């Protein structure tokens, strides 16, 4: 088998882009090249009415032809439609005006709860995380997308040590008892290995798409809890030439995603 002509980061951006819905309005955090590229790609393909805030920079709908190392980079702002303030961010987050946001964690559990605060004992943490930042707004987004560049059993744990962001909590109807009904839990999890949803009854993470270079067994081995597998599990095909071309010529001209390891 020849070396694939694309990287897992490019594949991941394309996979995410396919899940985006036209007309939605959302937010992507700082240092999140892959979702930022995915959203821009979706705008250029099936979702021209998608809108998003680009974390830190203040840029709404940047027409980035380059991915900046820091998405808080000022240069994103220059080609954007609107310069948002942090007031806007928390207003939209709290008022349930964002259809989605992309969020991650040092730990992600089987119900999509996220931890960015601390690993181990709260009084004497083994690892101190960078902090909870916007994760409480999982209770204010209409839905959310979880995203990680590292799929390992250390990230995907049975139960997070600390809930910075509430996913489906203990599963079932646990979440609905806490938050406003308009705010739903996470809809998808995106990793280098594939795409996941949450099974509607139990709200447990479920594999729905497998990226071309891996397998169900490898994904399960990289996950610290037992994964559910969708009945109609899809094996994702390699990116088509048109999408890859758009990504490389109109979204990521400087090849930030191409410098990630190739999809082995």
């Amino acid at each position, binding site marked *: 088998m020849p070396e694939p002509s694309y990287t897992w980061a490019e594949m991941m951006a394309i996979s995410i882009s396919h899940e985006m819905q036209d007309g939605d309005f959302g937010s992507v955090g*700082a*240092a999140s090249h892959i979702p930022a590229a995915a959203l821009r790609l979706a705008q250029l393909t099936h979702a021209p009415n998608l809108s998003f805030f680009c974390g*830190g*920079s*203040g840029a709404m709908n940047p027409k980035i032809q380059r991915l900046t*190392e*820091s998405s*808080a*980079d*000022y*240069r994103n*702002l*220059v080609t954007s439609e609107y*310069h*948002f*303030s*942090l*007031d806007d*961010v*928390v207003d939209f*987050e*709290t008022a349930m005006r964002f259809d989605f946001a992309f969020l991650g964690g040092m730990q992600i559990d089987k119900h999509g709860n996220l931890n*960015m*605060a601390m690993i181990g004992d*709260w009084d004497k*943490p083994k*690892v*101190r995380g*960078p*902090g*909870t*930042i*916007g*994760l*409480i*707004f*999982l*209770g*204010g987004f209409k839905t959310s997308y979880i995203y990680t560049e590292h799929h390992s059993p250390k990230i995907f744990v049975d139960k997070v040590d*600390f*809930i*910075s*962001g*509430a996913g489906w*909590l203990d599963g079932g109807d646990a*979440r609905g008892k*806490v*938050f*406003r009904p308009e705010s739903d839990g996470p809809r998808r999890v995106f990793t280098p290995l594939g795409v996941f949803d949450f099974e509607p009854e139990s709200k447990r993470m479920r594999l729905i798409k497998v990226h071309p270079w891996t397998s169900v067994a490898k994904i399960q081995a990289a996950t610290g809890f037992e994964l559910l597998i969708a009945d109609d599990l899809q094996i994702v095909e390699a990116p088509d030439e048109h999408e890859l071309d758009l990504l490389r010529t109109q979204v990521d001209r400087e090849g930030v995603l191409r410098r990630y390891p190739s999809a082995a």
Partner: protein
Amino acid sequence: MSASKVTTPEEAVAGIPDGATIALGGVHSHNGPMALVNALIRRGVKDLELIPTPSAGPPVDMLIAAGCVRRLHVSYVGLEFLGMAPNYRRAAESKAIEIVEADEAWIVYGFRAGASRLPFLPLPALYEGTDLPKVNDGIRTTTDPYTGNTVTTIPALRADYGLFHAQVTDRKGNAQIFGQRRFEDVMAKASDHVVISSDEILDEYAPAPDPRLVSIPGAIVESVAHAPYGSHPLSSPGHYGYDREQLVEYRDLAAQDRTKEYLEKYVYSVDDHLGYLDKLGARRLLGLQQTFR
């Protein structure tokens, strides 16, 4: 003629006492008031309570390494694309500093309430599903007088001093901040004393800028520190990019718990901000120029 508020970075922070609460501007690798932070470190100020923006980075980690910090409100503290903030992490794990376990809502709504001196702020159900109320006793509850329901509250945040970096400021303190998320205005309103470091000072006889582009009004600014490259090694939006080489140098030394070597080289061994710039040299500074305005 109105009095000028323009001074040096060193003079601008000379009055900040040990134990002061500081609202600190700058987002990730951008627009931190580094000349002011360096001057504070050089002075050896102690026991600061820091409330940085929700996306804090190198200046917070440096102030911790220099022993200036007693208490820190944490939403995010990290080095963004360069990873964790080593000194913050060590100090938090060893409890060398007190951590207020916070987040974006705590800081943004807290400062917003502080800007108006509201007594506190009630929120809809957000913290309820998380573990934050268990580790932060500032997250409390009261009764909603319109529904009778119990609602979660956070306190208003105010600072003794607000430190911010701007690209261009006039002598009265009207500050133009070119990039990032507009929030410095709210933090400034929540600060008793506002100090701006500014790459450039607008000539007194220059045409005034479009008033819609002035970020902080001069009437609430106490002093303006003229600090060319005052955000270095962070970026100054529209003026210069971040100095990646120096940020990596910082990260590598900090990760090995050798931050003192960095501080010795760039902060303690020079007398002031102009000495810092001389040490870096024209070639290096001008190589960072990035014109995007």
